[in-house]
Structures are given as C-alpha cells and as structure tokens.
C-alpha cells in the first residue's frame, strides 16, 4: 500500500468523505466534507468513486510527501499548490513521482481545498464513514486534525487513470458565491416583516469564530416579535438560527443535532457547498427561493455530479 506523509499539516487539515447520515437518534451529526461538490469532482478526476476519503484543508495548506508516488487532484479553493517549484493547477489530475512532495500555501480565493489521491485515503471507518468529527474525536485519522509526521495509507489503484478535462461552464455553475439561497425556516413566522427584510436586504460578515460546527454571522441583529420559549428540536444542516442576543448562526457539517433557538431560514441543498467555501471576514447575503425551486436546483445539481458526460469534456 502506498502512503501520504504529512510533513506539515497546514492550518486545519482533516480526512473527510461524504459523511455519515442516519445516526441522529444517537446524537451523531453527519459531518463530511464542507464542500462535497469539490470532493466529488476531485475524486472523479483521479478515477476514484466520488465519495472516497480525501484531505480537507482550511484557509492554508501544508506539505505532503508521496514516498511511493501517486496521482492527485486539488479541488475547491486555490491554495497555490507547488511541486518542485512548479505550480499545480486545481481541477486536474497530476502524477507525483516517488519521493516528491506537494507544498500548499495560503488561500488565494476561498476557504477549503481538497487533496484527492487516486485510491483514496484509507482510515478505519466509524459508522460507515471516514469523516473526522473533531468535537467528539471520532472518525477520520485518529479522530483528530492531521499532525506533522502522520503517515496516511492510500488505497490501491486498480485501473488506469486517464487525464480528463472539465467541460466548460461546469465549474462556473458550481462556483462559490457571496449570495446564498435560502428557504423559510420553521420559525419564520416568529420574525416580523422588518426582520425578514433585514435578512434579505442587508449584508452579513462571517465571524472569525466560524468553524465546521457553524458559521457565526456579524452585522445585522435579528429578533423574534416577542421573547418565546422554544422546545428544543432537530435542526437541519444549513439552518440559520438566531440567538437571544440577535446573532445569526448557520449550522454546519459538525453541527449540534438539536437546538432551542428559532430558525429564520435554511440554506438550500444546492448551496451548502458554497457555505463551506466562505472564509472568516467574507461578506454574505441571502436571497429567498421557494421549496419547489430549491428542490429543482438540488435535483439538477445531483444530476450533474452523477454524470461524467456532463462533467467532463
């Protein structure tokens, strides 16, 4: 089995796949890649099944060596990856010769970059997934972020990898945006018209205290019509909940599974990967779509991600 050696981990790098849905009743949130679109395309570009485990890097990448060589793809944000002084472009496969190392730096555009390796990163699965859940220290590589000196096993490559090019327009259609589309949340009626207007007309700032559990938003303060006690209930991924102080928090992949704050809106499925590409200090706006539109957009996006013909030239 070949391997990937962590010579320096970068700011926060974890092993992620598409997560482990289905364990809400034991309090386990699905976790998984913050940008599952980038993960899936990156995997396909190295000939993997779309849900194979890869490295998720946050804001700044590290240095990774490949003692036995391999084929990799960098997908998502551009972290200025280099191989022996030569730049490695994102969204295409690169062959790495044995003993070579890939060095990444600070992001040039968005929050997360995926390093996908042909064969995938092989870790012991927890509840059917390789995803790291940082809060509980479960899954992924020893339940934690990568450290210098970690040696991650890489799976066997059984087929020849052919170089493929993204079809024009595909990346543009999936590109991160600063305006996220939302549907009305379960407590939408608790918020007066002026608060709803604030949500859609004003700009929010992603706080430094944002992470895989949630994105805290600074800027406009939101409040319900009156103080109301709410019975804690399940909260979906992408829920925009409002705390008693008026701060909006968007629940993210390592979210608390339940919560007692009212939820004014919810990011749509087709924009969840865009949430994963927001950096601290980025601005974000929200626009409303209907449940029918959101569902149509999701079905269209899933169709695209599951069709090699539509993805690749």
């Amino acid at each position, binding site marked *: 089995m070949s391997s990937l050696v962590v010579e320096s981990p970068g700011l926060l790098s974890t092993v992620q796949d598409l997560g482990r849905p289905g364990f*809400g009743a*034991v309090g386990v949130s699905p976790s998984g890649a913050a940008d599952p679109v980038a993960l899936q395309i990156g995997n396909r570009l190295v000939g993997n099944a779309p849900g194979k485990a890869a490295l998720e890097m946050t804001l700044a990448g590290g240095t990774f060596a490949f003692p036995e060589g391999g084929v990799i793809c960098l997908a998502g944000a551009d972290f200025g990856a280099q191989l022996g002084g030569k730049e490695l472009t994102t969204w295409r496969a690169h062959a790495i010769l044995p003993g070579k190392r890939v060095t990444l730096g600070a992001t040039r555009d968005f929050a997360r970059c995926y390093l996908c390796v042909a064969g995938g990163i092989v870790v012991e699965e927890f509840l059917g997934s390789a995803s790291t859940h940082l809060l509980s220290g479960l899954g992924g590589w020893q339940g934690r972020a990568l450290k210098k000196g970690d040696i991650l096993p890489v799976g066997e490559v059984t087929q020849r990898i052919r170089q493929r090019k993204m079809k024009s327009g595909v990346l543009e259609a999936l590109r991160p945006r600063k305006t996220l589309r939302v549907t009305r949340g379960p407590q939408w009626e608790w918020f007066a018209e002026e608060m709803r207007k604030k949500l859609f007309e004003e700009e929010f700032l992603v706080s430094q205290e944002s992470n895989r559990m949630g994105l805290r938003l600074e800027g406009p303060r939101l409040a319900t019509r009156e103080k109301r006690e709410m019975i804690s209930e399940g909260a979906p991924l992408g829920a925009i909940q409002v705390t008693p102080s008026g701060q909006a928090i968007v629940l993210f992949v390592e979210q608390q599974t339940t919560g007692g704050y009212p939820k004014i809106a919810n990011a749509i499925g087709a924009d969840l990967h865009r949430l994963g590409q927001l950096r601290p200090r980025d601005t974000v706006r929200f626009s409303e779509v209907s449940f029918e539109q959101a569902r149509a957009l999701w079905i269209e996006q899933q169709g695209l991600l599951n069709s090699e013909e539509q993805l690749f030239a």
Partner: protein
Amino acid sequence: MRFQAASDQALLVYLGEEIGAATHQRVVRLLHLLQCERVAWIRNIQPAYSSLLISFDARAVDHAEAQARITEYEKRAETLPATKARLVEVPVCYGGEFGPDLDAVAAKNGLTAAKVIALHCTRTYHAYFLGFAPGFAYLGDVAREIAMPRLETPRKEVPAGSVAIAGRQTAVYPFATPGGWRLIGRTPLEIFKKDREPMGWIAIGDQVRFRPISREEYAWRSRA
C-alpha cells in the same frame, strides 16, 4: 400531529406541543417504526422532546409526499404496543472537583449539598432524546427544587463524564466539550464508546437512575 418544512430536504414532525411522557412515547414509537422499516427515502431522523426532524432524499419525495407517508407510518405506530423501557443506572461521584457547581445549585435553591444529591438520585428520568454530541442524552424531569439555569458564559471545556443540570434537565457529558450546564458530579463510565455495542450507554426511551458512589469507588471503576 403537525408538519413544518424545515429545509428543502427536511420536514419537522411535531407529535405534541409540550415536554412530557405521553408525547415522548409517541416520538419513540414513530422513531422505532421508521428505524425498523429502514425507509429508503429517509436519510436521517433527529428526534427531540416532541418532534422528529426527518431529512429525506429530495430526488425521491417532496414535502407533501413525505408528509403523506409519515402520516401513514404514524397511524401504524399508534397501534403498536409501547416498548418496554430499559432501566439504566449511572454511578456518580457527586461534589468536590467533580461537581464544581454543586454548592451553587444548593445555595440557589436554599438547600444543603446533601439534599441536592438526594433529590437528584432518587428520581427516575426519561431519556427524551440524544443530541448536542454523540451519546449526550437529555434526561428529565429534574425536581423543581434543584432546577438551575445554565451558566451565562459556558465553560470552554467540561470534562468527559460530568453530570450536570440545566433547567429541569440533567445529562452526562460523553466527551470533553464546551458546555453551559451546571456540573454536580462525574461518572467513571464511558458514556459513548465506539467499539461497544451499543455505543451509547443511554438510548432514547430509556429510564435512567443515578447512584451516588464514593471517591474510592470512582477511582477503582475508572481504572477498570
């Protein structure tokens, strides 16, 4: 029963509008039925006090269709006999370094620490649901006399095994996590263990009792 779209791929099913044993029973019954049936279009189920959040495969169903199907399941769930609850015991070493808020809970309610412990461990609690973190069970209802609001500023790290109170709920922290509940003791048990079946010591629908143990018993149990 009341339905509310929660996201483009999730539906909230409210089985009552209050926290209580009857609504809890309905939640558990519907959850168990949906789990047994392994419903293909359901991606995840998150139960809570009086509701289930159902995440669905939006390629297979929309909200209206999900609602119609859940309504049918709920009708069937009502006819099922109530599942017999498991009785689960959690040993706790109260006070001292393990329960830094025990004295505050006592003072707030005008009781001695010993009385707080007695009130906490003589009740049998419902495990209403698990949430917040893997294995974290919301247990209720705590006696009114020892109810206690959350800390204004949550602790950055609560030690694993901490037994805590918030309002009329009590819980055991399975992992060292941030937390705002009032800490009154600690259990030597591993509340969530990934190599164990079941992984969680407490499951939704269980009846839970706390048993006071000495520091000696805590010490030997945590070594075991």
